[in-house]
C-alpha cells in the first residue's frame, strides 16, 4: 500500500507541476501515428521496430523526473514501480535492456533530433521543427 500510495501522491504532485507530455520522433521519421499498445510495446522492450519496419530506438528520462512519471502513467498506464519490476525481471534474466536514459527534456529533444530511428517524450514547449509530435491513438 505504502509504495503505491507514495507513488500516487508523488505522481499527483508532479502531474500538477508538469502540464503535458508529447511523444516525438525526428521530423525525418515517416511515422505519423502510433497506438497506445505500440508505444507501450516499444517502451517495455517488446517491440524493436516501428510499424513500418524501421528499427526504433526509444529514449527514456530519469525515473525521478516529472515527465517520466507523466509519460508512463498517461501513455502506458503503469506506475514507475511496475516499470521497474518489469525491467528488473528482463535485465536479471538477460532478456532485455531498458531504453537508454537521458538527463532531461532538452537532452531528449537533442537525441531524437539527431537520430531518425529515435522516439522520445518531452514537454510540448520544447518541440521544434526538427521534431514531430506523434499522435498516440
Amino acid at each position, binding site marked *: 500500500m505504502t509504495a503505491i500510495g*507514495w507513488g500516487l501522491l508523488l505522481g499527483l504532485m508532479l502531474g500538477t507541476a508538469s502540464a503535458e507530455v508529447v511523444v516525438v520522433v525526428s521530423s525525418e521519421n515517416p511515422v505519423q501515428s502510433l497506438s497506445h499498445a505500440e508505444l507501450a510495446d516499444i517502451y517495455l522492450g517488446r517491440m524493436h521496430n516501428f510499424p513500418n519496419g524501421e528499427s526504433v530506438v526509444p529514449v527514456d528520462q530519469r*525515473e525521478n523526473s516529472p515527465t517520466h512519471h507523466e509519460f508512463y502513467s498517461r501513455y502506458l498506464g503503469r506506475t514507475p514501480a511496475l516499470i521497474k519490476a518489469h*525491467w*528488473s525481471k528482463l535485465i*536479471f534474466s*538477460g532478456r532485455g535492456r531498458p531504453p537508454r*536514459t537521458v538527463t532531461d527534456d532538452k537532452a531528449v529533444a537533442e537525441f531524437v533530433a539527431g537520430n531518425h530511428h529515435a522516439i522520445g517524450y518531452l514537454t510540448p514547449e520544447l518541440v521544434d521543427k526538427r521534431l514531430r509530435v506523434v499522435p498516440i491513438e
Partner: protein
Amino acid sequence: MNELAGQGEEKLTPDEGHAGHSRLHRLLEPPILFSGIVLLLLAVIWAVSFNLVARDHLAAERTAAALAMDLADTYEAQVVRALREIDNTLKLVRYSLDTREAQAILDELRTKGLLPPELLFTVNITDANGNVIAGTHSATGENVTALDFFQRSREEDGMVIGAPRHEQSANEWRLTFSRRIADAGQRFAGVVAVSVHAGYFVSVYEEAVLGEHGVLGLVGTDGVFRVRRTGEAITAGTSVDYNALVTRGSADDAPTAVTPNPWDNTRRYTVARELYEFPLAIVVALSEAEQLVPAERIARTYMWRTALGSLLLATVVGLLGRLSWQLQKARTRAMKERVAYARRVEYLAYHDNLTELPNRALFSRLLIHGMQYARRYDKQLALLFLDLDHFKAINDSLGHEAGDELLQELGRRLRESVRESDVVARLGGDEFVILLPEISEDSQVQPVADKILAAVGSPFTLAGQEFRISVSIGIALYPHDGEDEQTLMKNADTAMYYAKERGRNNFQFYFEKLNSDSLERLALESGMRKALQSDEFRLFYQSKHDVRSGRVTGIEALLRWQHPDLGLIAPMLFIPLAEENGLIVPIGRWVFDTALRQNVAWQKEGLPRLSMAVNLTARQFLDDNLVLDIQNALRETGMAPELLELEITEMMIMHDMEVTIRILQELKQMGVRIAIDNFGTGYSSLAKLKGFPLDTLKIDGSFIHDVVSGSEGKSLTQAIIELGKSLGITVVAEGVESKEQVDYLRLHACDQYQGFYINKPMPAQEFADVVREQLQESAQPAPHP
C-alpha cells in the same frame, strides 16, 4: 409311538464323520460367501487405491524435488551473471578513474552506455572519508562512512556485498556492492559502489512455477538474507543459521530434501547452494503443501471413488445377499412345511383323527413291540379290550355329533386313568384297547381296570344332558393268554364279551374255558348284532308251483347271513342263537319288511300276484308285538294281506293251544294266511289240527324224499294229502327233487310243490329272472315238466 419318535431322532443326528465337509459347506453358505467376496473385493479395491495414491504422491514428490533443483540451477546461473555484471561495472569504474573529476568520468561512461541501466542501478563514488563525490543519480554530498559496505571495503579487497538497507522513501530494500579504490601508494582512497533494489535479484519469481509459498532468495555467508521473496512479499536482513541451511559440499544431484524453513516454519523442498565466486548462497524452495496439492487432489478423488465404489459394491452385494437370504429362508420354510406335512400325514396314518389316540395300525405295532420287549426281559403285559355298553343307543338318540363328542371325552378319560407309558388306542367305533406294558403281577391290572370303570362311569354332559355310560372290559395277559398279537387280541375280545354276558359295566380276565365253550357262540352273537346294522342279512327266494299245471303259485322267503369272514351262513346255525338272545325279533322285522317290499316291487315289475311266505320262529310268534309288526310291514310296503303267508311249525302251535289259536285268529282277521311248516315231524295230533284256522300244510321234505323209495314215506305223504283235502286246506310238498316225485304227487292230487327239482332258493334278481323265463315257457303250449 416311542418307536416312531426314536426313528425320527435318529434321522436328525448329524453325521459326525463329515465334520470337515460341513465346515467347508458352511463357508460356502451364501451369507458367509458373500461377505467373504465383498471383503476380498474391498481389500483389493482399497489396496489398489492406496497404492495408486502412494505412487502419485511419490511421483509428485520427485517432480517437486526435480523442479526445485532445476529452478536452483537456472537461478544460480542468473544470480552469478548479474553479480558478475555488477562486479564488472565496479571494476570498470575503478579502472576508469584517473586525474579527472570522478563525476566527469562517470558521465562519460554513462554516455558511452558502459554503465548498467540507470533505471535500476545507481553508481556512486566516494572519497576516503565516505563522502560521495560522484554518482549517476546525483547523490553527491551524502556521506556513507557509517554504512557497512564502506567499512568493509576499507579493509577488504574483493567485492563487498553490503547488508540490505531499507529505503523508507521508496519503501524498498536496497543492496549495495562495492570495491575499494586505492591511490598510487595503495592506500585507501574511497569506494565505488553499485546499488540496486533487492527485488532485482528475486524478480524472476514466477508464481506459476514457485507458487504462492515458494522461496527465492540470496543469503550471505554471514547468515543474513540479502533478499528473500515469497509470493509478492520481499524481505531482507533476517538472519538464519547459514551452516544449517546450506549444506556445503553436497553433490548437486543429491535429492532435494523437504525441510521446515526456519524463518517461517513452512515445509519446503529447499535448495540452498553456495556460489563459487561470491560470499552468497542462493535459496530456492518449493512449498511441499503447494507442490503436492494436485497429487492430493487426485488422491482425494481416488479415495472418493473408492469409497463410492465400496459403497456401491456393498449395496449390490448386500441386496444380493438379502435376496439370497430370503430365498434360503423361503426354501427352509418350504422344507419345514413339507416335513411338517409329512409328519402330519404320518400322524394321521397312525392316529385316530377323532380322539387323537393311536389307531389300530399303530397299536398293532406298539403291541408287537411291547411283546418283543416283554419276551426279551421276561415281563408280562396286559391287554384291555373295551367296548361301550349301549353306545349305539346313545348314538341313535343323541346323534352322531354327540356320539363323537362322547368318544372324544372317553378317550381323554381313558388317557387320564392310565400311566404315561401305557398305550390307549381306538380301534374304531366304540372299541378301545389299552396296553399296560411291564406288568409284574396280575393283581396290578385290576386297579387299573377299576379306575377305568370309575372314570367312564362318572356322568357325561352331552348336548346339555347329563347321563352315565358304562363299559365292558376284557383283559388278556401276555404271555399267559396268547403269545402272538392275534391270539391276544382275540382272547381279550372274548373276555370282553364275557364281561358283557356278566351284566356289563365290569371287567373279566380271559380264561381257557371261555374259549372252548362259548367262543363260537359269542362270536356269532356279537357278529349278529352288527349284522343288522351292516346289512349282512340276505333273503333268498324259492318258488312254489302248482303240481298239475306247473305254474308259479307263490314264493317263500328264506333268511341267510352273509358273514364278512365266514361267508354265507345257513339259518339253522344262527337262528337258534337269535331265538335265545331275542335278536330274532328285530331280524324278523327286517325279514317282513324286506320280503314284502320285494314282492310289491316284483308285482310292479309285471310278475303275477304271488303269495309271499315268511317263516316265524317260536319267539317271534309269541312276541307281543307280532301282530303290530306285521300290520306295520303290510302298511308300509302296501302288499295285500292275503298274499302274505306265515309259516309256523307244528311244535309252535302245540305248545300252548289256547294262546296259539288266539294269535292265529288275530292274524287271520288281518287277512293273512297261515301255513304249517315241516308238517309230519312233530307227531302232532292230526285231530287237533281241526281246531286251528289253517290255510296250508307243508309236508316235510324228508317224507317227499322217501315217496319214491320207501313205503313209509309214501303212506304218510298220502295221509297228509288226504287230511288236507278233508280239512279243505292247501297241501304243499317241500324238498321235491325229481320228476318221479312230482309224478307221484300229481297222482295223489297234491296241490303244490317246491324244491330243487324246479327252483332252488335264489337271490332276488336271479329269482325274478328265472321266474320270468318259466312264465314265458308255461304260457306256450309246451309239454309240462
